[in-house]
């Protein structure tokens, strides 16, 4: 279990449902480790200001997280966390390892147009 203030996805089926029901979805798949926790912090902060994006986390070591670990977009990834950005049911972007606020915001702005929506 991940101790964050974000919604935690527990099953692959639940993730698929979230992907299908949310136009913009960001899921960080990691552990409670030094590279992952800062990304959760960024997401917790952004969750308060980005109404058009659904934010969630998933435990990397859960067998159910194979849906992310084995995603084609994560091929070659060698650093936690694996962070997925889904747009209209498809992977719009995936990143490996730690990301800061500026990097995450940049992706959200590029793929989810968050700067326009939340201006």
């Amino acid at each position, binding site marked *: 279990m991940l101790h964050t203030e974000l919604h935690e996805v527990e099953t692959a089926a639940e993730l698929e449902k979230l992907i299908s029901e949310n136009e913009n979805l960001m899921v960080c798949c990691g552990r409670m480790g*030094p590279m992952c926790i800062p990304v959760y912090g960024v997401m917790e902060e952004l969750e308060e200001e980005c109404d058009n994006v659904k934010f969630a986390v998933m435990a990397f070591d859960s067998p159910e997280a194979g849906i992310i670990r084995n995603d084609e977009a994560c091929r070659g990834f060698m650093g936690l966390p694996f962070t997925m950005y889904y747009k209209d049911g498809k992977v719009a972007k995936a990143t490996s390892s730690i990301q800061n606020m*500026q990097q995450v915001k940049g992706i959200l702005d590029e793929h989810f147009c968050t700067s326009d929506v939340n201006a």
Partner: protein
Amino acid sequence: MEEVKDLIVVGGGAAGLTAGIYSSRARISTLILNEGAVGGQMVLTDEIANYPGVEKTNGYLLASTMKKQARDFGCKIKSNLKIKSYDLEGEIKKVALEDGREFKSRSVILAPGGSPRSLHLPGEERFKGSGISYCATCDGEFFTGKEVIVVGGGNSALEEAVTLTNHARKVNIVHQFDHFQAFQHAVDQAEMNPKIEFIMESELRSFSGNGVLQEVSLEHLPSGELTRKSIDGVFIFVGYKPNTADLKGIIELNEHDEILVDADMKTSLPGVFAAGDCIQKKYRQVTTAVADGTIASLSAADYLRS
């Protein structure tokens, strides 16, 4: 009318959150401005078993509790922002953010903490997460059966190199000097490990690869000879630096860019205090940061009363 807080705390790690808790509880209007995730280095600690009164916890939970305590006492916290400039000399202190916002207060506690050093080499950012890592515990398993380099010569580098031998086929430790700064027991552990080899008096110069890291260039410092080495991963542990770059020329720092303070955590400027990993001191622990934050908060309260 523009609001002037009693106190702005720069930094939301153990020192900053403690200052926020003490000051807010004393009815001092307090705002914490934090550049990263709340909790600072503390959240990066997997297990904390030596925090008095707490049998065992992890850094994230301890930080979350501190954050909640501060907020419950009325402390405002703004995090994941970028500070552009400081104006700390007058009676009213000003902190400007890159997004254009400016905050004012009668006193300031600087607790920006420290951050891991990176090598700033060509290709480093590109291969982060695709062969370059800063955490063996997190990412070691991705290098099972592979050959990796560990850069550094301190305790973290040597201990993480030993940890990596649980996964990697071979671990090369690259260090710029002919000796290590680590404690002798850490050096002994590394030297006894048959999977570890040492490349001394050498530094990395660049990273390259097709999508993932495949090769590094190495310079042997005494001879200046450059060689290329095929490699699957590089783990970088070259220490921490205080986050005080923006404070140079504003307050007094030592040669390591640590803030100079007296026993009351006063800096060289009236009404400006400092606490935590950013100050000149020998030991850096959650407990020492908490103590610094407490003292800085009480000193700031004294200053505001006077």
